[in-house]
């Protein structure tokens, strides 16, 4: 008997119930070997066998399992059954009946002896219904809500569904969504459209982001707003296209020829994908620079409910443009105290200028004298400082929990938020006090937020789904800390149990 790798290795939290499928001809035992001392009960169901009996094939297994879950979680049976009817009705009465039978018998397979209490889900209490969306759909909805009407891209897993979503929905809002021959053309066309005044974005994943490097430079140099969404996947190279990883951070922050300012944002939940994408457009427009939104495969593909936003409260920003009378003597790249200078869009009389990737002076003419380069580098990087200061004073909904007396704290990023919060729930039950910070903006580093978080702590843990601990490295460049770095580089996200074990070991 071959032990099932996951279940036998995985630490499980007390109170769990494990429901193995008991294959036929296996004398009532599952293939999974459960160590004696594991703190959970098992409740085997003959899923296979029921399916064959009810539907004549193993294909009905999903419905059997669904039936069992609906019973365990106390989800209204009728509602779920209606969904099944919707799904199978078009396949004919025979298929539908077989599947409903499978569903029913799965439901019935959970006996009254099952300990339901701890698993019952509460029904949501009235109010407007939620939308159920994936991380990629949330990003795409954010793109639309932000007012972006030009999208260009090249298909790449796991970002393609962002692109496809926009292809479907943006045209009816007057938008243009174009597939190009590669990522370089995609981002170049975005820059052209941004130059003409549009809010623009391109969706991609690691290999595409790498190809875009030179044009990210250009966006930074000519100060064009641009949003790139990188749905990270396992790398390097073609890597693990359908698996998750958090390994594009270093490239997102530093990847370039020369040094060029950009902001990097990472949503931490599916709902957050929507809001952080809008924020990315606002930063791109206000600071006239590229903004990279990092999500990852695990978040991109997962679906979750989200309440429909109150659109009236969403604030949208646009790049500063010259007004009437300002064309005379207009200096597109004026060296200002914030670093941000007003722009003019094609069509504006008398304000024509040159935007060049060559080093240039304030009006835009090429100029690579020593002091000009120094001055214009400072001008462009000053925007990043201005942004960092603005972020310090912004109320951002990053998770920041600092229980009094906590000596250990976690700083992590992106979708690790889920398993970390779950693990912290376990830890709290055990009486442990652990602090947690999950910043949304990674670059520029939210210095004030991180500084006040780490001050009272003795030990910092950083969880990352990559090999080298890129975020921890980034933190060490700015803060005098030696964090314990816990990395997982397996193409799958951390589990709450893994995080919990690590907390226990380090608390």
């Amino acid at each position, binding site marked *: 008997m071959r032990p099932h790798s996951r279940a036998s290795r995985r630490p499980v939290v007390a109170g769990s119930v494990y429901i193995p499928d008991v294959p036929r001809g296996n004398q009532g035992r599952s293939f999974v070997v459960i160590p004696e001392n594991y703190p959970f009960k098992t409740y085997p169901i003959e899923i296979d066998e029921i399916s064959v009996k009810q539907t004549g094939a193993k294909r009905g297994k999903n419905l059997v399992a669904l039936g069992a879950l609906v019973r365990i979680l106390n989800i209204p049976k009728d509602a779920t059954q209606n969904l099944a009817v919707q799904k199978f009705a078009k396949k004919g009465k025979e298929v539908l009946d077989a599947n409903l039978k499978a569903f029913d018998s799965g439901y019935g397979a959970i006996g009254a002896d099952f300990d339901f209490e701890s698993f019952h889900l509460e029904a949501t209490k009235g109010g407007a*219904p*939620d*939308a*159920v*969306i994936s991380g990629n*759909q949330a990003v795409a*909805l954010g793109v*639309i*809500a932000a007012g972006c009407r*030009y999208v*260009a891209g090249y298909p790449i897993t796991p970002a393609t569904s962002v692109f496809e979503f926009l292809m*479907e*929905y943006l*045209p*009816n*809002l*007057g938008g*243009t969504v*174009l597939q*190009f*021959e*590669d990522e*370089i*053309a*995609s981002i*170049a*066309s*975005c*820059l*052209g*459209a*941004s*130059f*003409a*005044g*549009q809010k*623009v974005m391109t969706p991609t994943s690691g290999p595409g982001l790498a190809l875009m490097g*030179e*044009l990210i*430079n*250009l966006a930074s140099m*000519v100060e064009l707003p641009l949003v790139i969404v990188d749905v990270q996947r396992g790398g390097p190279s073609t890597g693990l296209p359908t698996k998750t990883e958090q390994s594009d951070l270093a490239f997102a922050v530093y990847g370039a020829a020369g040094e060029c300012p950009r902001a990097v944002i990472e949503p931490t939940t599916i709902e957050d994908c929507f809001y952080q994408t809008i924020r990315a457009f606002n930063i791109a427009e206000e600071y006239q620079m590229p903004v990279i939104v990092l999500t990852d495969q695990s978040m991109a593909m997962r679906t979750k409910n989200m309440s*429909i*936003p109150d*659109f009236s409260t969403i604030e949208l920003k646009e790049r500063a443009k010259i007004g009437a009378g300002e064309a005379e003597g207009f200096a597109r790249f004026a060296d200002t105290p914030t670093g941000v200078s007003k722009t003019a869009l*094609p*069509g*504006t*009389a*008398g*304000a*024509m*200028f*040159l*935007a*060049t*990737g*060559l080093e240039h002076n304030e009006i835009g*003419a*090429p100029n690579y004298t020593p002091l000009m380069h120094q001055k214009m580098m400072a001008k462009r990087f000053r925007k990043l400082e201005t942004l960092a200061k603005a972020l310090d004073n912004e109320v951002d909904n990053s998770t920041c929990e600092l229980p009094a007396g906590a000596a250990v704290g976690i700083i992590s990023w992106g979708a690790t938020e889920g398993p970390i919060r779950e693990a912290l729930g376990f830890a709290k039950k055990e009486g442990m006090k652990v602090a947690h910070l999950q910043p949304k903006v990674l670059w520029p580093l939210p210095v004030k937020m991180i500084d006040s978080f780490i001050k009272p702590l003795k030990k910092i843990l950083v969880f990352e789904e990559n090999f080298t601990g890129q975020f921890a490295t980034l933190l060490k460049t700015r803060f005098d800390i030696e964090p314990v770095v816990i990395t997982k580089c397996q193409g799958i996200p951390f589990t709450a149990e893994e995080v919990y074990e690590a907390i226990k070991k380090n608390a």
Partner: protein
Amino acid sequence: MSEVALKAKEYRSDVKPVWCVGCGDYGELSAFTQALSNLHIQPEKMVIASGIGCSGRFSHFVKCYAFHTAHGRALPAAIGVKAANPDLTVFSVGGDGDGLGIGGGHIPHAARKNADLTYIISDNGIYGLTKGQSSPTTPINRVTTTAPFGMVERPLDPVRMFLAYGITFVALGFTYDVKGLTHILTEAIKHKGFSIVHLLAPCVNYNITTADSLREVIAPIPDDHDRGDIKKAFQLALEDTKIYTGIFYQIDTPTLDDDVRELQARSKTRKPKDIRGIFEQFI
């Protein structure tokens, strides 16, 4: 088009060209500004996206909204400009290395999109800016800094490629024939769709294909050539004793802008028209 015509000279920016004396690109600039003047194009309604190279500097010298992009990427940038604002007159300008080497992969796809813009390739058969390396159109056996024993790879034949790609306006010009080139560029700008104007633009520094040697083989496309006939266009392009200059081919098909409007119209009956409506699809 504006009512007040600007003179060709008035389309020049304050930046003086940095090209060598005798460079073929001067003729391109003269013909270009003359064509703008002929068509009364308003400088503020015009965008030039240019590539990197001596020829990529072109955008600096014209009064317009100028975007000097990255090596090989001017064409997709120009497509983005046009897609974002169809009211603009849009150009992409660059060299043979820029357009046929590093950026060569973009041309067939730009042909498929048929964005209404004009792409001018100034072909000097060499990498001029970087001082004399082989380009995709360097003649066979020519000695360059990266072919010290003579070029062994065969050069591309751009016009044949452009015809094969299905580009809706294909022309070849000679930068020392400013009058002929002005006519070609005027027609190219007027063309509704993607027009490509390939230029024989001698470099006086690094490639010794001289203007005189070109004059010996150049002949204007006969007046009675039917521009709508792709077979005839190929015949002219396949002629190997002469290099024809003029407009080889021109057809009218829907442009990118037409296609985008078409998609917007098709989506009307099927999709919600605002963000709330889209969210509600996922309840």
